[in-house]
């Protein structure tokens, strides 16, 4: 352990667990928290630890009822916290776990996401008139009153506005978005856990129905059910676990005030409007880890909408801002031969959408050398959460 940031390399991921994945609603009659417990027990088995040793929870995107969960599994809790915001916190929830461990508040911390989109759907997250308990839809707010009267009700429509501006400003084209969707699908085809295993062609992409132009069906992620758990502990304890440790080199979350809520504001300054909102946290992660984009062997980038993968490639410095479209078109994100293989598990677009936690699982598998689409000799992985309102987050892992 060298000097530098107090979080760097002090903790490691030792266990990963995931339920199977379902199309939305099909995990019923299981309950979301039942799925969470199944994922946690699998992660404990993977790590070679007893579930009773779990003493912390680091959640995000509204989380779940830890009190009831602890009662179910009889777990004594020393740390229970959650990142504010939504899917932007996926990678950052592991950073929160690391912070708890380094500060001595817990020893073995679970980051868990469980999702069941049976009665409510993120796709209509901002639609009016739904006050059902547990629904993802929010009541009309002072802020949404400036958006919703025009019909903006879904993240796809809002990200379409950022995407159109990117196309206008930089000349990005639909064929570039297609490459993200097609390369991600090609990875999913080989992965047994993936929900989408039919290859996607450019012809099929271009003929697909439009959702919110310029986004078509295949630019939008899946709507899935399932749960994923990730266990983090101290670097010292990690070496006694069943699997090789995957060290947390850095994790940053947050973002610029002038990004703020992002898609539910739409007033971001022009120089960052057509971006992922990740530039401040990218810089923080590189500084914290002492690493840079050239050191990364595989990138697991939150892919709710394919153009946002392109914007993250820019914001993390894999290519200059504005050149993400041609960068992907040149084959740079393809597994296994691209300069930086992206979403080798099939991502939110084609494996499953568990609000980004599947990306953490894939990073761990890559760095253990056990991934389905293994990047040969992978040593460093980048995972991102969001793009969304702040906080957005990331995670730099190494073996």
């Amino acid at each position, binding site marked *: 352990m060298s000097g530098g940031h107090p979080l760097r390399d002090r903790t490691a991921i030792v266990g990963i667990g995931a339920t199977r994945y379902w199309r939305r609603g099909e995990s019923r009659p299981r309950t979301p928290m039942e799925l969470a417990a199944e994922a946690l027990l699998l992660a404990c088995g993977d790590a070679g630890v007893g579930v009773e040793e779990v003493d912390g929870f680091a959640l995000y995107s509204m989380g779940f009822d830890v009190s009831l969960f602890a009662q179910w599994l009889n777990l004594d809790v020393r740390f229970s916290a959650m990142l504010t915001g939504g899917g932007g916190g996926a990678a950052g929830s592991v950073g929160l776990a690391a912070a708890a461990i380094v500060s001595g508040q817990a020893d073995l911390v679970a980051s868990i996401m469980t999702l069941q989109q049976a009665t409510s*759907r993120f*796709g*209509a997250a901002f*639609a*009016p*008139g739904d006050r059902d308990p547990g629904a993802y839809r929010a009541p*009309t*707010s*002072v*802020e*949404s*009153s*400036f*958006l*919703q*009267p*025009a*019909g*903006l*009700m*879904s993240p*796809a*429509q809002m990200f*379409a*506005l*950022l995407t*159109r*501006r990117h196309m*206008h400003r930089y000349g990005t084209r639909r064929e570039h978005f297609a490459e993200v969707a097609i390369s991600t699908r090609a990875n999913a085809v080989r992965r047994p856990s993936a929900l989408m295993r039919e290859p996607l062609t450019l012809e099929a992409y271009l003929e697909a*129905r*439009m*959702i*919110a*132009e*310029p*986004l078509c069906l295949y630019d939008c992620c899946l709507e899935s059910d399932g749960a994923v758990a990730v266990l983090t502990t101290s670097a010292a304890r990690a070496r006694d676990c069943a699997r090789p440790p995957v060290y947390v080199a850095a994790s940053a979350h947050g973002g610029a*005030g*002038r990004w703020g809520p992002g898609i539910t504001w*739409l*007033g971001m*300054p*022009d120089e960052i*409007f057509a971006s992922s909102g990740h530039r401040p946290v990218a810089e923080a992660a590189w500084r914290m880890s002492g690493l840079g984009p050239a050191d990364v062997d595989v990138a697991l980038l939150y892919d709710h909408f394919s153009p946002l993968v392109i914007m993250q490639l820019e914001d993390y410095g894999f290519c200059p801002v504005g050149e993400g479209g041609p960068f992907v078109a040149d084959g740079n994100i393809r597994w296994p031969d691209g300069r930086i293989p992206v979403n080798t598990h099939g991502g939110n677009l084609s494996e499953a959408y568990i609000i980004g936690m599947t990306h953490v699982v894939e990073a761990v598998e890559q760095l253990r050398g056990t991934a389905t689409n293994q990047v040969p000799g992978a040593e460093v992985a980048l995972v991102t959460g969001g793009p969304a309102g702040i906080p957005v987050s990331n995670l730099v892992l190494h073996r």
Partner: protein
Amino acid sequence: MSGTAGPGGAAPAGPEPGVLPGELVHVVTDRWTAPWWEAFAAGRLVVPACGACGTRRFPPTPFCPTCRSQELRWEPVVPRGRIYSFTVIRHAVIPPVAEVLPLVVALVEPDEAPGCRLVGNVVGVAPEAVAVDMRVVIEARRVRDGVAVPRFRPAGPGVL
């Protein structure tokens, strides 16, 4: 600024193509945003500016992002602008939207208030002809008594 209310002030009957059905338009306000909505319903387009340092912000919020003052003044601007970005909604995320699709949603910056982005539907032009930087007139679409929302129409020759 032109309104759309028919004679007697009644909103049009039946769904109007290209704009969100009025019954789906929900507007709630607080003491910071109410003056904007009241002015717009009265046919005046205004933007909030910091009373201390002059920084404009939109939508209106309780503090100036530059100097954190709560002093606010309302500056009238000409209801003309250009499209900053737009999307054409082809998929109805809730069923009642289906009958008015396609719905063009644009962000429009008034010429006199760059950076202040209004959100509204673009009407009077085929969705295929809408483009970034297109010049538009900003209209108040009256939804119900006391509530009007932005709507954009391409500026004709000689208008600008």
